[in-house]
């Protein structure tokens, strides 16, 4: 199982029945593949649909039915079209139960940076700032390190997405919960020890006595 699949499978365990969930593009969108259909979850794409379904078979795509990444999708029975005001009304208003986003850095306060690298890459925040500010639960799904450097740092050096403590960080190595006291190590990835995680993490981690293995469903 590759790193991304580990992350997607573990995040899928966080999805509870009946939730409204927004998945970011890229890695986070893989989470949908591991959520059982009997959980009656509605996926929101912030560009305007609640009840996102799988990519349709070739030749059956509809030009006006896409996800936030511009990819063709389908709509499940009971889906609803919404405009951008309603879409972000749901997000900002606390109606979105969970959002899963990628990250560039998360720090000991639990703050996320994921929208720009000054002088290098300025894609823009898109809907990320609203999602992180407004969703009930914010889950950061990302690789533990990038180019050998830990993405979990004492304090974000990149511009913040929101001054809000995210709910959970899921990497291929660990599940980490930001709390008032700091980052608490909750689970170890498959075949990874607490020592491996500490060595790969620049931020200070609070390590409870018992740190179980990830449940990958």
């Amino acid at each position: 199982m590759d790193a991304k699949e580990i992350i997607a499978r573990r995040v899928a365990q966080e999805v509870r029945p009946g939730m409204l969930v927004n998945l970011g593009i890229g890695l986070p969108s893989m989470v949908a593949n591991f959520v059982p259909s009997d959980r009656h979850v509605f996926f929101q794409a912030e560009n305007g649909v609640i009840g996102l379904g799988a990519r349709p078979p070739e030749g059956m795509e509809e030009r006006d039915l896409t996800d936030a990444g511009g990819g063709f999708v389908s709509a499940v029975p009971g889906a609803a079209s919404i405009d951008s005001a309603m879409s972000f009304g749901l997000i900002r208003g606390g109606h979105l139960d969970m959002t899963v986003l990628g990250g560039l850095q998360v720090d000991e306060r639990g703050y996320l940076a994921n929208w720009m690298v000054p002088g290098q890459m300025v894609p823009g925040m898109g809907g990320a700032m609203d999602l992180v500010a407004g969703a009930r639960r914010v889950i950061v799904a990302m690789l533990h390190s990038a180019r050998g450097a830990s993405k979990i740092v004492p304090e974000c050096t990149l511009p913040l997405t929101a001054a809000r403590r995210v709910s959970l960080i899921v990497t291929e190595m660990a599940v980490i919960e930001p709390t008032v006291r700091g980052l608490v190590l909750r689970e170890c990835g498959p075949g990874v020890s607490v020592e491996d995680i500490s060595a790969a993490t620049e931020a200070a981690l609070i390590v409870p006595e018992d740190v179980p293995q990830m449940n990958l469903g």
Partner: protein
Amino acid sequence: MIPEGAVLLIGGFMGVGSPHRLIDAIVARGVGGLTLVNNDTCRPGEGVGKLIDAGLVARAIVSHIGLNPVAQKKMLAGEMQVELVPQGTLVERIRAGGVGLGGVLTPTGIGTLVEEGKQVLEIDGRRFLLEKPIRGDFALLDARQSDYVGNLEYSLTAHNFNPVMALAADTVIAEPHHIMPVGVIPPDAVKTPGVLVDYILERAR
């Protein structure tokens, strides 16, 4: 009809729900110095990206430019000003401009770069950014269909910014895929009342 330097609100999200015929017409006429308000800068050669390719956009107010390297390059070269706005804030700013509100009080952006230079209000113990309304000289909209009164219906994820932009410009031009006789669209199906729409132009087949 659209002069140099106009502020254009153009519907669409990565080109989905954009008025492609109107965009092509602006490119053909080569009207420059435009301010573009859209969710994003689309991709080169697609949707509003065509306006940027043609060098017609002096300023873009968008939430995302990450998928358009031409826009990135023009921004870094100083050929195009870019104001990046969180998506939910962008749509509310346009709505505020359209419905006569003085601004938007949003928690989004508090504690980030977006806060810089803006007024922050504390209301009942929580902090909110005061974001200013946006209005356009023209709104260019995509619609599934209209009637000859200008009542509009939209399609699936092609709604996006279109219904809100319909409220916020001096002149509203809609590009429906079909135009139906008056009375065919039931009142409950109308998402933008025709009184908001000044011109309709059917999408060429």
